[in-house]
């Protein structure tokens, strides 16, 4: 590989579609420069959530950022959303090029 590659954290949040805008707004305020969102359906502690019907639709939000940032976001999610919303969040390590982007 010719470009410098580095390790970053990939935070994935699966949660209620109703939260999408709120979370993106929160993330931006915490220094996140980009993110990717896709639609999903699922089931978990808060029951079956299948995308056909607004109230029960899920989204999957992914953010690549520095490790400290991912941890801060996880912490924020836990404080404000874990108790009241259908939500699952997890972190992985990924290799990226152009590390200054994230």
């Amino acid at each position, binding site marked *: 590989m010719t470009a410098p590659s580095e390790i970053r954290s990939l935070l994935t949040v699966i949660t*209620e579609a*109703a*939260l999408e805008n*709120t979370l993106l707004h929160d993330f931006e305020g915490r220094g996140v420069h980009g993110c990717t969102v896709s639609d999903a359906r699922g089931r978990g502690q808060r*029951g079956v959530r299948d*995308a*056909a*019907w*607004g*109230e029960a639709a899920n989204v999957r939000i992914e953010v690549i950022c520095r490790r400290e940032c991912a941890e801060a976001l996880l912490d924020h999610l836990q404080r404000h*959303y874990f*108790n*009241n*919303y259908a939500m699952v969040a997890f972190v992985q390590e990924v290799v990226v090029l152009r590390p200054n982007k994230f």
Partner: protein
Amino acid sequence: MIDVVVLFFLFGLLAGAARSELKLPAALYETLSVFLLLAIGLKGGEGLAKQAVLPLLPQLGSVILLGVAQTLIAYSLLRAVGRFDRANAASTAAHYGSVSVATFAVALNWLATRAIPFESQAAVFLAVMEIPAILVGIVLARGINRHTNWRRLAHETFLGKGVTLLLGSMAIGWLAGPDGLAPIKGVFYELFKGALALFLLEMGLIVSRHFGTLRQHGLFLVGFGIAMPLLSALLGLTTGIALGLSPGGVTLLVVLAASASYIAVPAAMRLAVPEANPALSLAASLGITFPFNLLVGIPLYHRLAVHFAGDSA
């Protein structure tokens, strides 16, 4: 004889209860709801074009008060009789103080099928009654001194999909008038009933999914889901008569009062009162009140309207 669009609803209900694999594409459901809102708004706007707007203002004030009153009453009932906690009572009450577009569309169709005239401002009532209950619900849950993000909330409610579509299409109908609308009536008026039928098929499927919650939460929800619209109907009836509406217009106002929101309010409450359980309020509004209004309510409300407002027609 039961209307054919209601048969589609029952079909969806049965198919869902029998766990059929029937599922309509999400985009179709969304398209139909956009279509119904536009059609209702255009028709309302077209009607408004023929009358003075100023005398409407006191009417709008009255229906806003009507929505607020319903929310407060529902809240008291849910707290006192249902022993709901504050958040759930406030959230559910907001559903009942607001309105259901689908129920209104079925009522419009019911009147049209029977050639019963009504005031065009009913569509304005629909738009106006969607919002106040949301605000009242939030205040009930949070109090007014808390740091709610009112700006965000105002945006969500006033620029939500439903209100935008209703107000925008009313403006179009009003500006274009009957002649201007003529070219698009082939789509927005003549396809209305067929679109409503398809929409209600999907509503039946959705409603059937909320029966599970009902089984868990026992009789109170069922009782509330029937008693509350009846109570609201009486308030609506009184208001409609006081406003001097025709029997058709009174029927629509009663339907609005008796109907409970299942789109705009749940979405707003999810963000503003997150600790409320959305399954609870939706089971009542979608699982009980919506079918009750479709199957029993609308004909009943019309009979009441004719009985009490018949002379003013």
